[in-house]
Structures are given as structure tokens and as C-alpha cells.
């Protein structure tokens, strides 16, 4: 990744879904070898029950990515319910070889005072919150998915003056909600404690349709995501000008190397956003695009 430090960076968010551990390892090995990304976020953010599977591969994957010149950050759980969740957060926060991304205040409690990142599940809606967190050691903030363009512009200016990196998700299903209840288990007539990891069957989540058979939402364990796939290719140039430094692609089961290359090409002005969207329709998640949150209308909408 031999570009000047000021050029916009591309990042790969944490895998939100429960993929088999070997598949995750191989996915990251290919990312390390082929994807034009600057940063990869590792770590399970949805469910601590999934963690033991990938744990034996974590150090190997970190090393492989770092050797490829990719910066690795470790994302913490988005919701803490039981003591095991808390222990996992503490284990992540105690690592010194990577920057940790805090996704809830319990991680923040442990990371305050040393350099860390803030994830999209910790609410940063305004410049006052951003400034406070920067004062506690936040060097990088990824915004929640529902923040509109006008607010991003203000936060971008603020982040610039604070010397904080600002990241926005530009591709993949948009996180919409978290719950204590596991909706994947519920869909199978089970509860969280007896789930038997049924979420592993759905590499991009479980689709929910309305009574009229209209695609609506996607279930991923305790998380609800959009059915639509966020695509902010048309907004990249504007966001760079507004102070956004990093653009996050959220992993899905399609060819994420090709998706990363497409966004890199737009950032490098090699292709225009229309061409990028045409490519993404072919290579990416086979669902409609959305950019409504960015445009401050209904989140599911797509308008350019």
C-alpha cells in the first residue's frame, strides 16, 4: 500500500457473520495477498459464543496481514450482557500489538488514556462527543451507519482539527439494531443459550420479508441489519473533501477483493461511481443498493 499518507484509506470491517473458522482464515489470507486495503478490523463484534472457533487462528492472521503491510485493528463486542462478554472485551483491550476498536463503553473504560479507536456501535453523533473521546485517547472514529452527509461534514472538520481519523462505512449491509435476544436462535425455535450455532447457516444473515413478501431486514444473531447493501461510491469524493480519512467495506460472502479493488479505483479516480456501481451489482451482494441514511431520507432508499 505505497501511497502518500494523506490519500484516502480503504478498510475492511470485521466479519459480522458466523463463518466457519477455516473459511475466515482463508478469507483473510487472500485479503493479505490480494486486496488493496490499508486496514483490516478483526474480532467478533456480535456474539462471544462464536469466539472460541476463530481464536486459534487469530495471531496467525494478524501476522500474515501485518506482513502484507496492512494495519490490523481489533474490534470489541458491541453488546455486553454476561460476564464472558466482559472477559473477552478485557482480553482484547489488554493486547498491545494492535490498536483496539471500542464498540461499547466497557471497552472505553479500559482503553481510556492510551491510543485506541472508536467503533460504529459506540454512539458518536456530534463534535462534542468526538472532542471528549479524542481527549481520552481516541485516534480514530468510525461513525454509526445512520449519520447523514451534513453531520459527516461537521464531524469531518472537527476530526481534522483534533487530528483524529474519521471512517465511514461505504459498502455492505448497514447495522440497524442490537438486542439481548438472539433472533437467529428464535427463528429456529431456540434461545441464545441453546442456539447450536444456527447462525452459521447464513453467511450474509437471515432474510426477513414482510407479510407481502417484500424484502425488509436481515438477522445476524442479536443484530438486525438492512436487507439492502449500503453503497456510497458516489459520495467518496465529497467525503474526502469533508475530512473523512477512511472508508469501510463490510465483508460479505462474495468476492471482497474485487469489491475492495472497485472502491480503490474510485478513490484513485480511475473509474467513476456509476461504473463502480455497475461492477458492484455484478460482483457484490445480490440485493438492491441503499444510501438513504447518507442522503438524510429513509435509510433503505437509493438515489443519486
Amino acid at each position, binding site marked *: 500500500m505505497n501511497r502518500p499518507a494523506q490519500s484516502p484509506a480503504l478498510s475492511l470491517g470485521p466479519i459480522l457473520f458466523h463463518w466457519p473458522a477455516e473459511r475466515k482464515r482463508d478469507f483473510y489470507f487472500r485479503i493479505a495477498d490480494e486486496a488493496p486495503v490499508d486496514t483490516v478490523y478483526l474480532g467478533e463484534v456480535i456474539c462471544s459464543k462464536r469466539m472460541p472457533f476463530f481464536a486459534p487462528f487469530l495471531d496467525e492472521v494478524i501476522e500474515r496481514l501485518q506482513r502484507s503491510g496492512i494495519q490490523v485493528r481489533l474490534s470489541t463486542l458491541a*453488546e*455486553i450482557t454476561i460476564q464472558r462478554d466482559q472477559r473477552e472485551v478485557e482480553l482484547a483491550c489488554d493486547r498491545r500489538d494492535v490498536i483496539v476498536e471500542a464498540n461499547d*463503553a466497557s471497552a472505553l473504560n479500559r482503553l481510556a488514556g492510551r491510543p485506541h479507536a472508536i467503533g460504529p456501535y459506540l454512539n458518536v*453523533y456530534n463534535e*462534542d462527543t468526538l472532542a*471528549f473521546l479524542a481527549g481520552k485517547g481516541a485516534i480514530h472514529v468510525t461513525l454509526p451507519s445512520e449519520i447523514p452527509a451534513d453531520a459527516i461534514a461537521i464531524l469531518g472538520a472537527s476530526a481534522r482539527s483534533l487530528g483524529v481519523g474519521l471512517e465511514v462505512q461505504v459498502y455492505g449491509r448497514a447495522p*440497524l439494531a442490537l438486542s439481548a435476544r438472539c433472533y437467529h436462535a428464535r*427463528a*429456529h425455535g431456540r434461545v441464545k443459550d441453546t442456539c447450536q450455532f444456527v447462525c452459521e447457516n447464513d453467511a450474509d444473515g437471515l432474510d426477513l420479508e414482510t407479510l407481502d413478501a417484500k424484502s425488509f431486514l436481515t438477522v445476524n444473531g442479536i443484530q438486525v441489519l438492512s436487507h439492502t447493501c449500503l453503497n456510497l461510491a458516489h459520495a467518496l469524493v465529497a467525503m474526502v473533501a469533508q475530512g473523512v480519512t477512511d472508508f469501510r467495506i463490510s465483508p460479505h460472502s462474495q468476492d471482497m477483493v474485487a469489491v475492495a479493488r472497485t472502491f480503490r479505483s474510485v478513490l484513485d479516480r480511475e473509474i467513476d461511481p456509476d461504473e463502480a456501481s455497475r461492477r458492484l451489482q455484478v460482483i457484490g451482494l445480490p440485493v438492491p443498493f441503499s444510501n438513504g441514511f447518507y442522503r438524510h431520507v429513509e435509510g433503505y432508499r437509493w438515489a443519486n
Partner: protein
Amino acid sequence: MTTPELVCPAGTPGALRTAVDAGADAVYCGFQNATNARNFPGLNFTVEELAQGVAYAHARGAKVLLAANTFPPAGQTDLWKRAVDDGVRLGVDAIIAADIGVMSYISRAYPDQRLHLSVQAGASSPEAIQFYCREFGVKRVVLPRILTVAEIAAVHAAIPCEIEAFVFGNIGMMAEGRCSLTNYVTGVSTNTDGVCSPACHVHYEEDAARNLTMRLGEFTLDRFSGGEQAGYPTICKGRYRAAGHEEPYYAFEEPRSLNLSALLPELVRAGVTALKIEGRQRSRAYVQSVVAAFRAAVDACAAGAKPELAGLLALTEGHRETPGAFGGKRWR
């Protein structure tokens, strides 16, 4: 048993007086704008009304808690600061907040002002709560409705502040302060606009066979056959189709209300200082009935007697109730 504080909803000046008269130890309310999480038309207080409400409550020994518990969008933090300034000037007993920027303002500008951590902050673990206590001097946390009674007891033992827990009313299925479902469908944000499933985006449609279809924006949330009891349509209590389900099902939760009245003694033993009743959008008659019933129940528990609770079921959504997560881990 120590007697817990009964914290009651005051959506309007009338509801405030009703709740105080019915035995509330404290009422919570908000201003008529996006600074609070029940920003509905016809609800909430002007500055003058809150001044009168504080006087009314204080004259009768009740406290007033001001909810300034939404998240200010970038560039609009002044509105939240003004709500805080007004609340402090009017002498509210505590401000309930969720946004880190807002809490930072309160603790710097008004270090003596009592601050409660809103449920909208979603602080469910001792470590998260410790963060807010250390940074902003939070004196009480309103716990998310996701913990069992045993877990609440463990949290209580590990934090330096009081616990307030919801005991009755609407039960949202998603973690508070972390839900963009309404925004996804309507373009209005629960976190920044203070509205969940806004009525102006709700549509009802009845066909010839008296089947009632409920929509939010462009999406159908549920359909009821003639005579079936229909609750207010929210996304997290809608009925959906999914692979493996022949029939549509309640993918998140069924339309029913939280009712923890049977768990009152256990909650108090777990260390809960304050019991919160949801419902600033409800009528004065509802507030009167629920507050009076809980006043009697709390006093009965304190006297070691068995509380009479049957009347509360009639006030739950669709007359169906649940102890939610509080009842045990099978709920998750």
C-alpha cells in the same frame, strides 16, 4: 425491605400532577423538542410549564427528573445545552442524559447537578457504568431491559451508583440508543429526533373482510383478522416471513408489555433503588391507574405484605404481559 423510589412518566403538565397525586416519588419529563426520547406531537413541557411542574412536585415532596436523553446531531448541540441550562435553572432534581457530549457539558458547566445515565446510553455492564461514573459523576444508571434479576444483583455489587430499573410499560426489543430501524423505514431517527415508529408514518388499512393491515412507511408490519386485538405498530413487534417458517412469525417479539410487579421484592433485594414506569405518551387515566397500583404494591412490599397486582394486567398491551429478560435467560 427498603422502600424503592417510584419514578413515573409525565408526558404533560396534567400527567405530572396526576402522577404526583397518585403517589409518585419522582416524575420524569422532557421539553417540547428533539432533546428527549418521547418527542411526540402534543407531549412534553414548555419552560414555563416545567417551572410550574417543579413547583407542584416539590410542594408535595416529589422530585422532577428532566430527560435530555437523545443524541444531538453534529452542529445542533446548542439545543441540548439550552435544555440542560433551563433544567438546572428551574431546579430539577436530576438530568437524565445519554450522549457523551451532553454529559461532558453537564459535568463541566454544572458539577453539582445530579446526573442520571439514561437507558439510551445502553450501559449494561459494570465496566461501562463505571466509565460514566468516573468521567461524569453519574449518580444513577437506568439499566437496559436486557438483564436478569441475578445479573442486576451482580451489577449492583460492582458499581458506585444507584440502579433504576423499568418495571412496567412498553418493552422495546432492541437495545435502547442503538436502534436505527425507524430511521431505515421513515427517515426519522430515534436517537437524534427522539421518535420511535412516528404516528405520521403509520398507516392502517381495513379490507372488506375487516382484516386490518398496519404499515410503517412502505413496509407492512402486521395484519390482524377482524376482532383480533392490534397493538401499536412498531418494527420490533411486527410479523415477518423467513426461510424455514411456513407461516409469518414474530421475528423479534410479540406485542406485549413489560410487567415486573410480581418481581418487586426480588428487584429491591438485587439492589434496585428506583422503579421506573414507562409511558410518557399515555393518558392521565392510565398514569393514574398504574401509579396508584404500584404505589400500593410498593407500600405493601415494604410492609412485608403480599401486593395486589391483578389490576395491572388490564393495562398492558393487548392485555398480554411478560417479565422480559428480568425473568431469566430463557427469554434471550
